[in-house]
């Protein structure tokens, strides 16, 4: 297909609600997960009201978008049937739990012990959700997905969440942690996407796959390089905006540049072998 546009077409993707769902929930879940890391370090930090409100809004919005992917959204509650035994069911439970806890944290309270307990619960749910995001795609029978890609949601969530937290004025001590997580995220991204095409697999979206290099460059730029530079320069809110765009590009790339294993792809692989002889 001729490339006559600067950006790839997104209408061909049925996964775009999932892109928005994960792009909104990953930073919010990561932010709460990073609070656990910061407590364990220990590093001084705070979660001001506007950050808690932002996280809650991102989670509610993300969950709302997730319904748009379902063919029968009114039956969505059925997805809870296999919680604990099915990664997608488990993901739904953690996403819903994190949303509820995040909304509870928005309510002003003087009871510090309860606030701290809720924040730790949100951290645990956030970390579990990020791990489950990867687990959903670690498909036993579908080997193109069995790569470091599955670690992407966790590391990108932690990186984005740490930038969100570090953007708050009183959280300057989190800057080294944020930079470290950005570096780890960049390494995982490069390790995941260095393979051009696994044999026996085809691009899930060939039209988007044509923009592979450009998308990955933009993803690294907005998710890693730009936030790091802005953070070091002291432009912390701008770093948060940049990493938000980076997460969106990362999630779009995750689905848009995926490979799928099908019988057609296997036959195409053999055809290439035949033609090459």
């Amino acid at each position, binding site marked *: 297909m001729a490339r006559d546009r600067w950006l790839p077409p997104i209408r061909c993707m*049925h996964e775009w609600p999932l892109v928005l769902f994960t792009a909104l929930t990953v930073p919010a879940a990561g932010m709460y997960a990073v609070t656990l890391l910061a407590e364990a370090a220990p590093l001084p930090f705070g979660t001001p009201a506007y950050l808690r409100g932002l996280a809650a809004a991102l989670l509610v919005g993300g969950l709302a978008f997730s319904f748009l*992917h*379902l*063919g*029968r*959204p009114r*039956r*969505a509650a*059925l*997805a*809870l*049937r*296999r919680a604990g035994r*099915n990664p*997608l*069911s488990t993901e*739904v439970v953690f996403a819903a739990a994190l949303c509820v806890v995040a909304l509870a944290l928005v309510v002003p309270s003087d009871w510090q012990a309860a606030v701290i307990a809720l924040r730790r619960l949100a951290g645990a749910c956030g970390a579990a959700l990020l791990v489950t995001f990867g687990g*959903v*795609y670690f*498909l*036993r*029978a*579908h*080997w193109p997905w069995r790569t470091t890609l599955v670690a992407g949601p966790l590391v990108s969530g932690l990186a984005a969440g740490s930038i969100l937290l570090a953007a708050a004025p009183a959280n300057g001590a989190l800057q080294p942690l944020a930079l470290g997580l950005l570096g780890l995220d960049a390494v995982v991204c490069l390790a995941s996407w260095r393979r051009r095409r*696994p*044999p*026996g697999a085809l691009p899930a979206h060939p039209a988007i796959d044509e923009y592979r290099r450009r998308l990955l460059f933009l993803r690294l730029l907005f998710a890693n390089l730009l936030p790091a530079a802005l953070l070091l320069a002291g432009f912390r809110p701008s770093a948060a905006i940049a990493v938000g765009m980076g997460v969106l590009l990362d999630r779009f790339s995750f689905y848009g540049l995926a490979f*799928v*294993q*099908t*019988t*057609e792809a*296997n*036959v195409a*692989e*053999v*055809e290439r*072998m*035949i*033609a090459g*002889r």
Partner: protein
Amino acid sequence: MSDRIAGFVVDLHRCTGCNACVLACRLEHGLASVGAWRRVIPLNDARHPAGPTYFLSVACHHCERPACERSCPTRAYEQRPDGIVVHREERCIGCRYCEMACPFGAPRFDDYRGVMTKCQFCVERIDSGEAPACVAACPTSALRTIGDAAAGDLAVIPGFADPAACKPAVRFKPPRGIRGARLAEFLGSAAKRP
């Protein structure tokens, strides 16, 4: 597999790629909005001398360990004692996770009804003692069910990956007249995939 009837045997020597099985499936189930559950995929249709030519008639393979059943969050897939993997539409939320999990492209999303669909091995015909529509329609008897066919057929041929994770219940008889050395060479190439 002695009690299992769900599974197809495809004789690659007899299959002419006529697509009668595809048409029969579509007519039997009225698949206007979702497309065919069965596909016929040619391999080396251009008759390049370096490789064999045959047609792979594939649908749902009713695996012994179905990836769709494991991946479904709502238990919309059930496997009967005879091995047929049935999709319960009333439990389906249309999340398309099974479409991602299946390495054979069997589950298909019905845009009009918002649920997944797939080959059900014509359970109504099976329960009334008939063969699946695709098997009944095949003019050369290239497509048969596992219960009908002779044992000892090859499971894995070039162009068809057999992921041990789900153990597809499909067997292929290799095309006759193909020199064993050439087929083995291609099998060796296919086996080198990670």
